[in-house]
């Protein structure tokens, strides 16, 4: 058996090819994810030090075409409604290109902040848009985007932190809602939100140890990570679990070699890209999270990734740290 290695060039080609699928019905059925897809693809390219594979001007033009004139914020595709999830993707892409200044035109920055803050509910939680779906994912997306924009305030942050703490579970994990079952992706959003708010200290040391335990038990004998007990492993949890462990400083509570093998085995050695599990169909989503996991573990000299923001550390280093001192 030949030793597995990272198929960097193939993955770059794969991501490059994603926009050439306009003859596929599925391409159009997934319009509602297009902006997220661009963020995933761009970040994956950054990790592989191949940021220039996408044409910056075209990407920014596309991002700006997703601006929701009526409500502010960004939708996933031109003419679609804005949503917190896609607004974060837009902000992340712009920050990655060091182009947040494009928001200064027509008060977009202010409108964008208003859109995000306007979706916060009295209990500190956030709804994804005006129709009321509440989920800790949206707390994270809101705080993350505001943080990138340098617009966090105690009025937003403090209740949000209180809300996150209500989602902490008996097993050390976090749910999407108070009382909801722990899920590795929610651990990421909740810990990420606390980290952005600089409020990890709201959890006691032993609470964090419990979190680390629960997360470390996500690793299965084949090296892969699952999202909840008794579930099959999936490459995307390489990110959700690992980044969470990284945020609480317990990254080495799982076995790197096993996880690396699992991710590498999920690569498509013909057309590039990474899938959820070996031999399944690849997609950009698992490609970015597989690569981001490998980067966090320090393999293959990949560009370092920030576990809180899922963006290159070179980009996140420029963000203003909350609480803002000496304005």
């Amino acid at each position: 058996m030949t030793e597995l290695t990272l198929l960097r060039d193939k993955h770059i080609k794969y991501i490059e090819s994603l926009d050439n699928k306009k003859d596929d019905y599925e391409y159009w059925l997934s319009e509602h994810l297009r902006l997220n897809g661009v963020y995933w693809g761009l970040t994956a390219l950054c990790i592989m030090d191949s940021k220039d594979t996408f044409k910056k001007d075209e990407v920014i033009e596309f991002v700006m075409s997703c601006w929701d004139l009526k409500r502010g914020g960004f939708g996933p595709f031109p003419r679609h409604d804005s949503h917190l999830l896609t607004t974060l993707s837009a902000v992340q892409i712009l920050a990655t290109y060091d182009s947040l200044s494009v928001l200064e035109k027509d008060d977009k920055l202010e409108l964008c902040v208003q859109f995000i803050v306007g979706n916060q509910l009295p209990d500190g939680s956030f709804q994804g848009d005006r129709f009321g779906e509440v989920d800790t994912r949206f707390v994270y997306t809101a705080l993350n985007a505001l943080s990138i924009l340098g617009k966090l305030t105690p009025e937003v942050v403090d209740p949000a932190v209180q809300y996150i703490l209500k989602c902490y579970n008996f097993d050390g994990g976090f749910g999407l809602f108070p009382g909801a079952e722990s899920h590795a992706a929610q651990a990421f959003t909740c810990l990420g939100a606390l980290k952005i708010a600089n409020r990890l200290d709201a959890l006691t040391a032993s609470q964090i140890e419990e979190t680390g335990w629960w997360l470390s038990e996500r690793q299965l004998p084949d090296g892969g990570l699952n999202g909840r007990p008794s579930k099959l492993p999936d490459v995307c949890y390489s990110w959700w679990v690992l980044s969470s462990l990284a945020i609480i400083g317990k990254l080495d509570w799982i076995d790197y070699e096993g996880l690396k093998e699992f991710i590498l085995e999920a690569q498509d050695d013909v057309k590039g890209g990474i899938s959820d599990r070996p031999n399944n169909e690849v997609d950009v989503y698992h490609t970015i999270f597989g690569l981001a996991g490998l980067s966090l573990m320090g393999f293959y000299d990949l560009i370092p990734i920030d576990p809180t923001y899922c963006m290159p550390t070179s980009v996140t280093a420029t963000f203003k740290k909350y609480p803002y001192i000496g304005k």
Partner: protein
Amino acid sequence: MHGIKRQQYSREILKQKRIQDQQKIKTYKDLTHSALDTRDKGIFTTDALQLTSKILELNPEFNTIWNYRRDIILTVTNDVKPDFWENELQFTMEKLKRFPKVYWIWNHRIWVLDNYPNATDKIWLRELFVVDKLLSMDARNYHGWHYRRLIVKKLESINGKLMDKEELKYVTTIINKNISNYSAWHQRVQLITNIFNKHELNKKEMKDMVLSEISYITNAIYTDADDQSVWFYTNWFIANDIVRLVLTNDEYIKMLKDIKDNVILINNDDVEFSGKENNWCLKILIVIEKTLKEAGYELDKDEHTEEYLKKLIDNDPQRRNRYIYLSTKQ
């Protein structure tokens, strides 16, 4: 792609697919454009509603179209027939059956119920049956569990009556079906906590409940000592405030020692059987020893945490750094 097998398609098949796709793409784009056009013209009619139905049929994840649909409903709501809202529930049900894990559909169903005019408890009670059905198809679907909690909360506030006890019965049947159902164990924690915190139980009832829970756990760890669901639950149960409050300290220590003895017995049985220790037994024994000490019980020579950690470093190498961390903390 989640759970979809990777395949190589022949050029011929891909070509055929392209040809078929052209027509589909045209239909889809035409529908989408005309829906967004009518939206932008501010048209909120039942005809436009039909248009959104068609698109959502093709793509149930098109949030913008769901939003448009809701705006239409809010506009036409006074002119619709009484069965309109029933049909809307039916519409989301068809989608949920096909796509039980799409957030947007669950979200729409909740929105519909929240806006259902004069919704009685019957409507919400029926939702409980609906979610029963969906959970019976996938007992770990956490949208389903989340939805169930929302429905129960609603019913409790409508009827002014707590439902935790009934829910605990439900959760018990689910666990009995499969003791590895972590979602159900999770829910058990919520319910037991609620029952103690919100219900007025007398001392005896509380104690009976704790005792029956201990025997339930014991039964479970004997039935499957490799299952992390049961162990995480045990880990919570032995150190939670309720138990400490209900039992006297002596009773509490006795409970811990009894569980400890059972866990040791199970572990020894595993060693005898296969020559290997049961890692989960060791992990829980560490917790029990810590909890015993916190309860003021002197373990002295009986303390084996250090030894358990050493064994775990070797036997559970994936998590060895956690054990090293714990042993340096000792």
